[in-house]
C-alpha cells in the first residue's frame, strides 16, 4: 500500500522506502507463495530476503538495480498474458497501477532492501528540527509529531481546557475521574507546572497500579476459573495482586519481565518472585472425563509460548505450530525450540478435580499477615489443649478404675444392631421394598435427586452412630449397587433426627465418617464436609461389591424413652445417582467405640480387661489404656479430643492457605517437532533455541527459561521495548504507533511516526525500563494535551487521528465505566487486592448453560464486595461478567492483545438499566441533594461537576431542570413507584431524604451518567 496515512495526508514523498512502501506490497501479494513457508513455496523463489538484487530467477535477475526492463519482478507484474502475470489472477490479489509504480520507482532508485523494520534493534534518532511557530514543543515527543504535521501542512490544536485535561489524565492514569475539590485545586493552581504536579500526584496514587493492571490481565489471560467444560474455580488472585503492586511501585519493566517468565529460577528467589510466574500458569486447564493428559499438557506449553511471544514481542509464534510461518522468517522447528524452553514444568496437564477445581501443581502458599495471626492463634489453642491433656492424663488410674467394672459388663454386647424401620420412603418418589435379609430395595421411577427417609423406633440409651450397608442386586443396572445406568450412586450426606415421644426433634450432627471402600475422588469424608458438589461413590460400574459406611457424631446422643429415629440419605450431588439396596444399623456406645470392623473390643483388650489388675503385663496395661482413652467418655477423652480437634484446625488452616499456581523447573523433558501441531505425531527432536530471525549474539545455544527471559530484555532484542512503547501509545492516544499492538511481525503496519517509535523504544530502555517515566513523557506532551474537537477538515484528512493534530478521544472500557459510576455515586469501596469479589449479576448467568463445578449458584456479596473496583470481579471464563463482555472485554480464555471499542444498543441498555449503574445514579442523586445546596439548579450543577469535572452550562441546567420538575410531579403523584426507584440496590438511602425527590434526581443522574461525555474520555 501507500497506506491510508499517505493517501489521506498528502503527496507521497520523493524517495521510496523499502520497509514503508515496498515490503507491504510484497507481503500482501507475493509472500504467501514466495516466502518463508517451504511447503507453500513456488518456483523455489523467496521474496522475503533482505537483498533482493541478489536473487536469481529462471529467466534472469529478480531485480536489476536501476534497470526496470531487465528486472524479472517488474516484467512479470506488468505482464498482460494471464498465464504469465504475477500475482496469478486466481490468487485474487492483483497489483494496482500505483503499486506497480512504486516497484518501478524502487528499482530505479537502486532496489535497496532492508530487514523488517521491527527486527532491527532501534537506534536513537536525532530529534528533528521543527519550525514550531506556535512554540508548542514541550518535549521530544512533540518534535517528532510536529515535524510530520508541518510536512502535512497541519498544526497542533489548542490545549484542552483545564477541566477536560485533568479528567482525561485522571481517567487514563487511575481509572477514576477527579473530584470537584481536586478540580478546584487544579484550577486555582497558576504555577506553570500545575499540570505536571497533577500528573505526579496521579502516578503516585495506589489507584494507578489498579488501572495499569487492567490490560495486563487481558494479556495474561487472568481468570478465577479453569476455563474448560465444567469451568471450576481456581485461585490466581495473588498473582493479580502482584501485578498491581509491581505497577504501583513502578517495577522496572525488565524485572517485571524476568520475574513473570522465570522468577522461580532466579538465585535465591523470593516468594514474591515465584508468585510472579503465575503469569505462565494462567492458562486454562482441562479436566474433562476421557481426556488424554499429554494432549492437554502440550496445549498448555503451546499456550505459554504463544502468550509470551504475543505479550512481550508482538509475534504470532502460534502460526508456526503446524507449519513454517507464512510471513515471518520463523520455522516450525524454531517454534518447538521455544516450546522446549517452557516444557520442563512438573505439571500433569490436567486438573486435579473436574468438579471441585482448585489449583493444580506446582503451587506455592501465599499467606498474608492476617493468616500469620490466625495461625498463631490456632497454635496457641493447640498448645493449651496439649497441656490440658497432659494434666488430665495424671488422673488416668483413678478414671480407669471407675470405668473398668461397667466395661466388663458391656463385653458381651453387639456393636451394630440392625435397625428395623417402620417406614422407608423416597421423598422424590422412589419406592422401597423390604427384602428377607432386612435390606430395602429401590424400584420404580429413578428421580434426578432423591432423599430416602427411614423411620424406626429406638430403645432408650445412648446413640453413638449409624451404619449404612449398600448391596448389589440383580434388578439394578449392570447388577450393581446404584440406580444410575452404569450402576453407581453418589451419597451426598446423611441426616438424622431423634424424635421424642412428644414429637420434639433433636438433630444428630455427624462429624466423622468411615467406609470400607471409596471411589477415587469420591471419599466418604465428603459426606460430612458440607460441599454439595461432592459425595461418596463406590465404583458401581466395575466393582459391584457390598460396601459399608459409618457416620458418627462427636458424642453419643441420649435417646429418651419412646423415641423414634428419622434418618435421611440425601442423594443430590449427581443426577439419577441413587442408592439401590441398603440396610441401616445403630451403635449404642460412644462413637469412639464404633468401628467398621464390628468388633466391640479386640481380643487383646478383652484379655487385659479380664486379667487381675495386678497381674496385667505392661503390654496389656498399655492396650487397655489406649482402649480407654479411645473409647470411654471421660474428662481425659474430652481433653484428648480437644487436642485432636486443635491439631485438625491447624492442619486444615494450613491446607487451606491461599495458594497460587506457579512455575517450577523440573528435569528437561525431551521435545519434538509435532507434525501438524498434533501431540501424538512426533517429528524431529529439538532443543531449546532463540528465534534465529532476531539477534542473539554471544548467548548460550540452549537457553533455559531464565536465559530466555534475560534475552527478552537485552539491548539486542529489537521487539520488547517497541511492543511496550506501542502499547503505552495505544493506551494514551487510542491507536498504536504501528496499528496492531499485538503484532510487530512482517505483516505489521509501517509506523506512522517511525523515528518517534525508535526514539521512545531507546529512551524507555535506557531510562532503566522506567514505566512511569515513559508514561509521564507521553501525558505531559503537547500532543496529549490538545483539545479533542474534530473539524470536518481534520476528519477527512486524518479520520483516525494518527497524525495527532487534535487530542485523542475515545470511549472508556467497561471496567472504568463501572468504577467511575460507583465513584461518582459515592459507592466505590477502595481496597487494594484480595480474593475476587461478587458484585451484582443477573440471575442465571452462571447456571443457565451449566450445572457443573463449584462456580454455580452465584450469590452476590453483601456490603463492600458489591462496590469494589471491577478488576476484582470474579471471572468465570465460560460465563464472564456480562456487562464487561458487552463493552468488548475478552473472555480471558487466551491472551488478548487488543479490545475493540464498539458502540451498541446493548451497551445503552446496560448503562441505563443495570442495577449497578442505577444504584450509582441514586447515589449521585443523594449526593446532589446533600452536597448541592437547596436549589434545584445548584444541585444539578453539583451532579454535573461530580460526573464531568466541570460546571453545567445554563442550557444544560435548563434541560435538566425542566425534566426534573416533570419527574418530580410524576413522583409525587405515584409515590409507590418513586419509592421503588429510590430504593434500588443494597445501599441504604441516606436518612431524611424524601423518596419522591430522590427518585426524580435519580432520573436526572441517570441522564448524566449516560451522557456521551461521561462514557468518553476526551
Amino acid at each position, binding site marked *: 500500500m501507500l497506506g491510508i496515512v499517505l493517501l489521506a495526508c498528502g503527496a507521497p514523498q520523493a524517495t521510496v522506502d523499502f520497509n514503508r512502501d515496498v515490503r507491504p*506490497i510484497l507481503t500482501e501479494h507475493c509472500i504467501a507463495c514466495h516466502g518463508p513457508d517451504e511447503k507453500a513455496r513456488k518456483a523455489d523463489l523467496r521474496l522475503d530476503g533482505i537483498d533482493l538484487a541478489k536473487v536469481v530467477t529462471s529467466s534472469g535477475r529478480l531485480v536489476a538495480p536501476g534497470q526496470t526492463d531487465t528486472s524479472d519482478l517488474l516484467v512479470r507484474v506488468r505482464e498482460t498474458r494471464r498465464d504469465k502475470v504475477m500475482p496469478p489472477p486466481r490468487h485474487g490479489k492483483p497489483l494496482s497501477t500505483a503499486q506497480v509504480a512504486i516497484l518501478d520507482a524502487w528499482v530505479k532508485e537502486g532496489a535497496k532492501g532492508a530487514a523488517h523494520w521491527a527486527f532491527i534493534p532501534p537506534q536513537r534518532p536525532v530529534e528533528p528540527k521543527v519550525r514550531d511557530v506556535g512554540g508548542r514543543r514541550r518535549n521530544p515527543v512533540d518534535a517528532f509529531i510536529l515535524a510530520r504535521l508541518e510536512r502535512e501542512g497541519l498544526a497542533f490544536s489548542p490545549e484542552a481546557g483545564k477541566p477536560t485535561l485533568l479528567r482525561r489524565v485522571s481517567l487514563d492514569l487511575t481509572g477514576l475521574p477527579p473530584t470537584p475539590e481536586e478540580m478546584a485545586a487544579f484550577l486555582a493552581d497558576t504555577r506553570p507546572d500545575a499540570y505536571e504536579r497533577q500528573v505526579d500526584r496521579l502516578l503516585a496514587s495506589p489507584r494507578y497500579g489498579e488501572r495499569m493492571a487492567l490490560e495486563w490481565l487481558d494479556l495474561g489471560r487472568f481468570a478465577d476459573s479453569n476455563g474448560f467444560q465444567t469451568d471450576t474455580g481456581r485461585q490466581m488472585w495473588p498473582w493479580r495482586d502482584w501485578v498491581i503492586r509491581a505497577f504501583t511501585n513502578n517495577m522496572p519493566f525488565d524485572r517485571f519481565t524476568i520475574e513473570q517468565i522465570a522468577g522461580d529460577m532466579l538465585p535465591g528467589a523470593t516468594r514474591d518472585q515465584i508468585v510472579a510466574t503465575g503469569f505462565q500458569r494462567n492458562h486454562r486447564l482441562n479436566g474433562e472425563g476421557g481426556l488424554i493428559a499429554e494432549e492437554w499438557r502440550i496445549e498448555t506449553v503451546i499456550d505459554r509460548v504463544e502468550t509470551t511471544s504475543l505479550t512481550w514481542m508482538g509475534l504470532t509464534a502460534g502460526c508456526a505450530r503446524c507449519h513454517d510461518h507464512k510471513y515471518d522468517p520463523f520455522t516450525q522447528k524454531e517454534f518447538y525450540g521455544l516450546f522446549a524452553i517452557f516444557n520442563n514444568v512438573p505439571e500433569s496437564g490436567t486438573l486435579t478435580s473436574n468438579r471441585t477445581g482448585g489449583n493444580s501443581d506446582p503451587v506455592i502458599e501465599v499467606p498474608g499477615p492476617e493468616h500469620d495471626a490466625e495461625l498463631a492463634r490456632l497454635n496457641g489453642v493447640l498448645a493449651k489443649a496439649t497441656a490440658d491433656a497432659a494434666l488430665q492424663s495424671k488422673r488416668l488410674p483413678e478414671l480407669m478404675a471407675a470405668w473398668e467394672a461397667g466395661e466388663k459388663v458391656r463385653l458381651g454386647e453387639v456393636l451394630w444392631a440392625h435397625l428395623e424401620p417402620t417406614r422407608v420412603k423416597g421423598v422424590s418418589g422412589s419406592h422401597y421394598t423390604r427384602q428377607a435379609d432386612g435390606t430395602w430395595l429401590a424400584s420404580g421411577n429413578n428421580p434426578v435427586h432423591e432423599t430416602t427417609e427411614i423411620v424406626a423406633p429406638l430403645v432408650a440409651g445412648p446413640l453413638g452412630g449409624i451404619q449404612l450397608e449398600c448391596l448389589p442386586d440383580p434388578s439394578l443396572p449392570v447388577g450393581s449397587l446404584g440406580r444410575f445406568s452404569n450402576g453407581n450412586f453418589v451419597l451426598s450426606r446423611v441426616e438424622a433426627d431423634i424424635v421424642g415421644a412428644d414429637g420434639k426433634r433433636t438433630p444428630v450432627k455427624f462429624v466423622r465418617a468411615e467406609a470400607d471402600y471409596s471411589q477415587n475422588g469420591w471419599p466418604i469424608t465428603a459426606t460430612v464436609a458440607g460441599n454439595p458438589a461432592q459425595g461418596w461413590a463406590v465404583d458401581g460400574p466395575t466393582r459391584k461389591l457390598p460396601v459399608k459406611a459409618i457416620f458418627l457424631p462427636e458424642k453419643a446422643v441420649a435417646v429418651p424413652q419412646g423415641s423414634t429415629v428419622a434418618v435421611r440419605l440425601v442423594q443430590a450431588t449427581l443426577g439419577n445417582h441413587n442408592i439401590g439396596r441398603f440396610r441401616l444399623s445403630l451403635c449404642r456406645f460412644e462413637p469412639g467405640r464404633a468401628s467398621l470392623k464390628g468388633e466391640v473390643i479386640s481380643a487383646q483388650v478383652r484379655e487385659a480387661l479380664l486379667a487381675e489388675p495386678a497381674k496385667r503385663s505392661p503390654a496389656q496395661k498399655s492396650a487397655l489404656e489406649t482402649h480407654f482413652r479411645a473409647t470411654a467418655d471421660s474428662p481425659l477423652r474430652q481433653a484428648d479430643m480437644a487436642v485432636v480437634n486443635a491439631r485438625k484446625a491447624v492442619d486444615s488452616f494450613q491446607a487451606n492457605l491461599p495458594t497460587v499456581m506457579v512455575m517450577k523447573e523440573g528435569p528437561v523433558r525431551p521435545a519434538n517437532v509435532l507434525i501438524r501441531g498434533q501431540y*501424538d505425531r512426533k517429528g524431529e527432536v529439538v532443543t531449546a533455541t532463540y528465534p534465529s530471525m532476531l539477534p542473539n549474539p554471544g548467548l548460550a545455544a540452549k537457553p533455559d527459561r531464565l536465559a530466555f527471559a534475560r534475552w527478552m530484555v537485552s539491548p539486542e532484542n529489537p521487539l520488547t521495548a517497541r511492543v511496550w512503547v506501542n502499547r503505552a501509545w495505544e493506551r494514551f492516544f487510542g491507536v498504536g504507533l504501528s496499528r496492531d499492538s499485538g503484532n510487530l511481525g512482517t505483516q505489521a503496519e509501517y509506523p506512522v511516526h517511525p523515528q518517534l517509535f525508535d526514539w521512545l523504544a531507546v529512551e524507555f530502555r535506557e531510562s532503566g525500563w522506567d514505566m512511569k517515566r515513559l508514561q509521564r513523557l507521553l501525558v505531559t506532551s503537547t500532543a496529549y494535551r490538545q483539545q479533542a474537537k474534530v473539524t470536518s477538515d481534520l476528519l477527512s484528512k486524518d479520520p483516525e487521528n494518527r497524525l495527532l493534530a487534535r487530542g485523542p478521544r475515545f470511549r472508556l472500557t467497561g471496567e472504568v465505566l463501572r468504577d467511575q459510576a460507583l465513584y461518582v455515586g459515592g459507592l466505590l469501596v477502595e481496597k487494594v487486592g484480595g480474593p475476587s469479589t461478587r458484585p451484582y449479576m443477573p440471575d442465571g448467568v452462571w447456571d*443457565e448453560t451449566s450445572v457443573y463445578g463449584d462456580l454455580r449458584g452465584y450469590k452476590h456479596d453483601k456490603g463492600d464486595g458489591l462496590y469494589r473496583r471491577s478488576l476484582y470481579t470474579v471471572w468465570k471464563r465460560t460465563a464472564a461478567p456480562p456487562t464487561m463482555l458487552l463493552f468488548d472485554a475478552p473472555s480471558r480464555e487466551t491472551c488478548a492483545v487488543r479490545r475493540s471499542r464498539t458502540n451498541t444498543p446493548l451497551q445503552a441498555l446496560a448503562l441505563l438499566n443495570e442495577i449497578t449503574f442505577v444504584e450509582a445514579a441514586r447515589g449521585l442523586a443523594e449526593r446532589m441533594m446533600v452536597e448541592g445546596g437547596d436549589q434545584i439548579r445548584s444541585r444539578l450543577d453539583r451532579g454535573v461537576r461530580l460526573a464531568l469535572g466541570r460546571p453545567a452550562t445554563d442550557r444544560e441546567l435548563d434541560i435538566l431542570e425542566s425534566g426534573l420538575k416533570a419527574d418530580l410531579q410524576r413522583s409525587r403523584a405515584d409515590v409507590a413507584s418513586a419509592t421503588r426507584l*429510590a430504593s434500588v440496590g443494597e445501599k441504604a438511602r441516606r436518612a431524611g431524604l424524601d423518596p419522591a425527590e430522590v427518585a426524580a434526581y435519580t432520573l436526572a443522574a441517570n441522564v448524566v451518567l449516560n451522557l456521551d461525555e461521561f462514557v468518553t474520555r476526551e
Partner: protein
Amino acid sequence: MNNSSLLAMGDRLNRRLFLGSSAAGLAGSAALADMVATDRADRPWLAGTPKAKRVIYLFQSGAPSQMDLFDPKPGMVKHLGEDLPDSIRKGQRLTTMTSGQSKFPIAPSMFKFARHGNSGTWLSELWKYLPRVADELCMVRTMHTEAINHDPAITFVQTGNQLPGRPSIGSWVSYGLGSPNRDLPAYVVLTSFGSGRPDDQPLYDRLWGSGFLPSVHQGVKFRNKGDAVLYLSNPPGVDAMARRATLDRLSVLNREHFGAVGDPEIETRVSQYEMAFRMQSSVPDLLDTSKESKSTLDMYGADVKRPGSYAANCLLARRLAERDVRFIQLFHMGWDHHGGLPNAIRGQCRDTDQATAALLTDLRQRGLLEDTLVVWGGEFGRTIYSQGGVSADNYGRDHHPRCYSIFMAGAGVRRGYTHGVTDDYCYNILEGAVHVNELNATILHLMGIDHERLTYPYLGLQARLTGVESVKPVKALLA
C-alpha cells in the same frame, strides 16, 4: 492494501454496520450516505445471489448417536457383544473413558428403521414426527471432525478452531452480511436443557462469542430467566413514558455536545440509544406468542407453552426468522449418552421431535423455508461399541469423531437426499466425507458468501472461519 490497512477498514466498516442498521435516524450525514453506498465494495466476500437469507441452526449438544437415529446398521444385530474388529478400529485413538476397556463389545441399535416419504429417507422409530417432513431433509451421514472431547469439539464446530478466541459462525455471518432488522440483533441464541440428565454437557459463552471481531457481532443469548435480553427492563419504578422523557433529554444534551466537539461517534451513540429503546418493545413483542393460532401451537406440542423448552425455542426461531434475524441458533443439551442410551435418547427425541418437524412445516407453510436454511446437528458422533456392559436393550456409547450424521433443510439444499456412506460398523466413512470446515463453507456459500474471502485481519493474518487449509462447499448438498 496490507493487513493493517484492512484492519483500519474493518474498524470503519464495523462502525458503519451499526450505523447502517439505524441510518434512518441520521439522514443528512453525507459521509454516512457515502459509506453505505460503498458497502458492496467493502465486502469482497459477497458472491452470487444468496439462496438463504437467514439460518436457523438447531444445535444438538452432547453428540447424538447417529446409528440410533439416522444411519441404520441392521447387520450389527448378529454381532451383539462381539469385539469391534481391529480392521475397523485401525488403532484410532479413544477417549480415556474407554481406552482402558479390554473389550469393545458391539452394541447394535435396538431401534427399528424405516424409509419415509417419496424420497425413502431412512429414520429410526425414535422419530414419530420427523417422518412427516422426510422429503424436506438433506441428510449427511458422513460428517467428521478432529476433536474427541466435548469442549474442543463444540468449539471447533462453532468457530473452526478447537481452542477459544475465534469468532463463532453466527458472528462471522453478522460481520459478513450485517443485519436487515433495525430493532433486533443479527445473531440470536436460545438454549434449552434436555429432559435427561440435568448435569449434561455445559455450554460456553465462546460458542456464540465474537472472538476478535467487534463485540457487536456476538450472539445475543436470550435468557430463560429474568430479562430475555440483558438489562432490557427499565429500573423499578420507571415506566416507558419516564424512560422516553429521559432519553429525549439525553439526546438533546448529546447533540449539543456533538455541536461542540464534532466527533461522529456521538451521533452513533444517540442512534444506539434509540435502537435500545426500540428493542424494549420489539423483544417483548417477539416473545409474546399469545396471538399464535391454536393450530400452530398444537403443531409444536404441549411443551411450547413452557418458556425455555426446545419447543418454545423452535416457535421463537420461526418468529425471529419472520423478523429477518440473520442467524438464529438453538442449543439443546442432553445428548451425551455414555450409559443407559436407549432410555435417555427416547427422552431427547420426545423433547425435540415434534417441534423440529413443526418448525419445518411452519416455515414451509409461511413461505419462509424458501430462503431460510435449517441445520440440525451436534459436535461429533458415537461409537458402535458399548461403553461398559451391553445387552440387547441397554448400552452406552463413547465419543466418535470419525463419522456422524446431521441434516439440513430449506433454502438451497437438496431435498429428500441422503449423502455419504459409512461402513457396516458406522465407524469409518466409505464415501462422501464432509469435514466440519466443509459444512461451514457450505452454509456460508448458501448465504452468498465466499468463505475464503470472508476474512478479518487478526495479528497479521487474514483469519477466516474455515481454517487455513483449502476447502470447498459441498456441491452435492446443493439443490
